[in-house]
């Protein structure tokens, strides 16, 4: 029985296989429409989420399966003080696979250690969000056709941004990757990501506060939101939230085939005017998330 808690648990071969399945789903949706008939996905969302939860639910429905669950902790027995371990054991009696989001880091791992069915980490605090990374990778694959020899700009909250950490971790396994890390001083990438991932894999990277200056070199620009829920102090949040806003002027010196990505939800860090730019890929990225979640559900349930 296999779970997915951290993107690093997937080998490059497994990633390739998931991407191949997702591409086949895109081309042949009918072939997959009853693959999960009779199976149930439990979506245990202890923290609000629109995209990830609906994406998991849509993925299971499109595979012909069913969905049960809750979308906030207050409507679950966690509000009565039930532990994550007990919730996982109990849900194992009712469903075939779990997708769990939790504000506490490591909660999905605790669930996986106690459940008797596969657990997918759908985001644990500022820690991991592997299925977002799967969506990101499919987007890069579909737009660029490769994962190697790319200059990837990551912009915004690089300190608390779990999607950024997971993407760096996933792309660092490919050759010729260069990262441009664009953020205010206070939201720079944590030192452990630099030492344990970038330096360890000999990955080239630069840190800068200048988005416009970095623009011409980028093949991919990954924007992130400065997330209010990651701050203990509202003053810090208000001071930093508008640090980097992408608008058409800032894109003037960008490559014509730049791929602009964002894990969404967007607040104001990408102006709406950019949506019309053919280089904007963030809504397609959300769609790709559904396909990769479908591929992942099939893999974890052992369905060919």
């Amino acid at each position, binding site marked *: 029985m296999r779970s997915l808690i951290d993107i690093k648990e997937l080998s490059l071969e497994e990633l390739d296989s998931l991407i191949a399945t997702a591409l086949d789903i895109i081309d042949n949706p009918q072939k997959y429409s009853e693959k999960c008939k009779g199976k149930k996905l439990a979506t245990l969302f202890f923290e609000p989420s629109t995209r990830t939860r609906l994406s998991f639910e849509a993925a299971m429905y499109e595979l012909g399966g069913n969905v049960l669950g809750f979308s906030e902790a207050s409507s679950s027995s966690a509000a009565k003080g039930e*532990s994550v*371990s007990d919730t996982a054991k109990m849900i194992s009696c009712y469903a075939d696979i779990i997708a769990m989001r939790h504000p506490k880091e*490591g909660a999905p791992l*605790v669930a996986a250690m106690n459940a008797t069915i596969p657990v997918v980490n759908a985001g644990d605090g500022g820690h991991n969000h592997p299925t977002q990374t799967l969506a990101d990778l499919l987007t890069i694959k579909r737009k660029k056709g490769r994962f190697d020899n790319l200059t990837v700009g990551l912009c915004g909250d690089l300190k608390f941004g779990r999607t950024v950490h997971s993407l760096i971790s996933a792309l660092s396994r490919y050759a010729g990757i260069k990262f441009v890390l664009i953020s205010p001083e206070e939201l720079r990438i944590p030192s452990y990501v630099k030492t344990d991932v970038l330096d360890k894999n000999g990955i080239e990277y630069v840190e800068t506060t200048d988005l416009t200056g970095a623009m011409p070199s980028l093949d991919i620009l990954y924007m992130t939101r400065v997330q209010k829920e990651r701050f203990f102090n509202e003053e810090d949040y208000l001071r930093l939230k508008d640090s980097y806003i992408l608008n058409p002027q800032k894109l003037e010196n960008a490559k014509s085939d730049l791929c602009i990505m964002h894990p969404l939800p967007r607040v104001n860090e990408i102006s709406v005017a950019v949506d019309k730019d053919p280089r904007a890929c963030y809504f397609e990225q959300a769609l790709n998330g559904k396909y990769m979640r479908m591929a992942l559900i099939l893999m974890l349930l052992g369905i060919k």
Partner: protein
Amino acid sequence: MNIDSIKNGIVIDHITAGKGMELYALLNLDSLSCPIVIGKNLPSGKMGTKDIIKIDADISLNTDILGYIDPDVTINIIKNGQIAEKKTVSLPERLVNVISCKNPRCITSCEQELDQVFTLTDKENRVYRCLYCETKAKEENH
């Protein structure tokens, strides 16, 4: 200063000077009723100064704690007044309920019944990380 040799028990030797009391506390030696001697800042040919702990009872020691706090210690098992066995310790791959995670966002911060588990992620730099949230253990975690 003369202290009688122990007959049957354990001598933890070559403790880095200053770490003896920390080991005494973490090994929970305070709970024992047998004679225990702690030597601090003793002269050592090999180390300059060292600490030493003599326990006059044949007890089971948590070598994970010893390996984590001071992996260069030597454990001498004493039987009938003689050293029957000399043991060294190594950095443990996994620490269970030895140190605690201080990350307020970690699941262990709100679910107290969970084991506090740390794994060795970088042997060269002796880095341990929380199994659940991957936060690096710091000196003050124990």
